[in-house]
């Protein structure tokens, strides 16, 4: 069962960043994807600074990275078939990210059943025991996401254009 899911995750892994213009714009990389866990990183970039005085990355980069990595863990946790939508995302900003360092985020799907998944994630700049931010989120497979997934599958089979 997990092998099937892992196979589907491996198949779509390249789309997880490349298929999302915002993830591409922020330079995200996918580091690991297993059923129920995901790791991604955001490279430091001067174009994404939030406070010019300190040179720290904008909180929005961390918000987007945590949302994305949690979504990936939820996707695998829910069987890697439908892309879930974020219901809510709670972020605790523990400390500012150090200027010049990449941000790494690791997420774990704590529980999933039916259409809902609960995920926890940590963002750090090198030492996971000294996090920059932690997040907890809930995801759900919605009608909009299911319909979009079906359109994508049909397009991949060549039945319909997107």
């Amino acid at each position, binding site marked *: 069962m997990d092998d099937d899911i892992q196979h589907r995750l491996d198949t779509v892994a390249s789309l997880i960043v490349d298929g999302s*213009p915002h993830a591409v714009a922020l330079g995200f990389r996918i580091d690991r994807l297993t059923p129920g866990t995901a790791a991604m990183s955001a490279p430091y970039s001067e174009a994404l600074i*939030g406070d010019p005085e300190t040179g720290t990355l904008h909180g*929005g980069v961390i918000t987007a990275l945590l*949302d994305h990595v949690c979504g990936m863990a939820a996707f695998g946790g829910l069987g890697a078939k439908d892309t879930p939508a974020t219901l809510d*995302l709670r972020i605790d*900003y523990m400390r500012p990210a150090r200027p010049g360092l990449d941000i790494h985020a690791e997420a774990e799907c704590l529980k999933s059943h039916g259409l809902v998944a609960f995920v926890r994630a940590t963002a750090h700049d090198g030492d996971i025991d000294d996090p920059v931010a932690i997040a907890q989120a809930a995801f759900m497979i919605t009608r909009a996401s299911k319909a979009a997934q079906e*359109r994508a599958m049909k397009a991949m089979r060549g039945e319909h254009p997107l």
Partner: protein
Amino acid sequence: MSRALLDTLMTAPYVARFGVRLEIKGTELTGVLPFDNDLVGNPLIPALHGGAVGAFLEIVASGSLLLSQPLQKLPKPIDVAIDYLRPARAQDVYARAIVARSGRRVANVRAEAWQGRTDAPVATLHGHFLITPESSEPGSDAR
């Protein structure tokens, strides 16, 4: 109002990169996130990235804090909770924030984002921000 810090907030590379604007009329502030393909999270729906909408709400919350009082530094988010109510479509997003409480060190802010209709919000944010007011009179804060 902290005019210089509002400028710092809005000219930060990230904020300028995604074209966020703040429209200020008197004491009222409305944030505008103009649609850009780089904001799309899921092109199949298509829907804007939850992180982009969350970041926009954070910027509007910070802007509202800066508009409401003179501060010495940019507000720093302590925690935020974002609820996603509807998919944010491939259109401009607007947002307003209410400073629910502002003390000597911490402010509690609520913000709401919408697209077509103000009564159909796409996301809401509730957060705490660390602030440094310019004149923190002893006793002006009950906390």
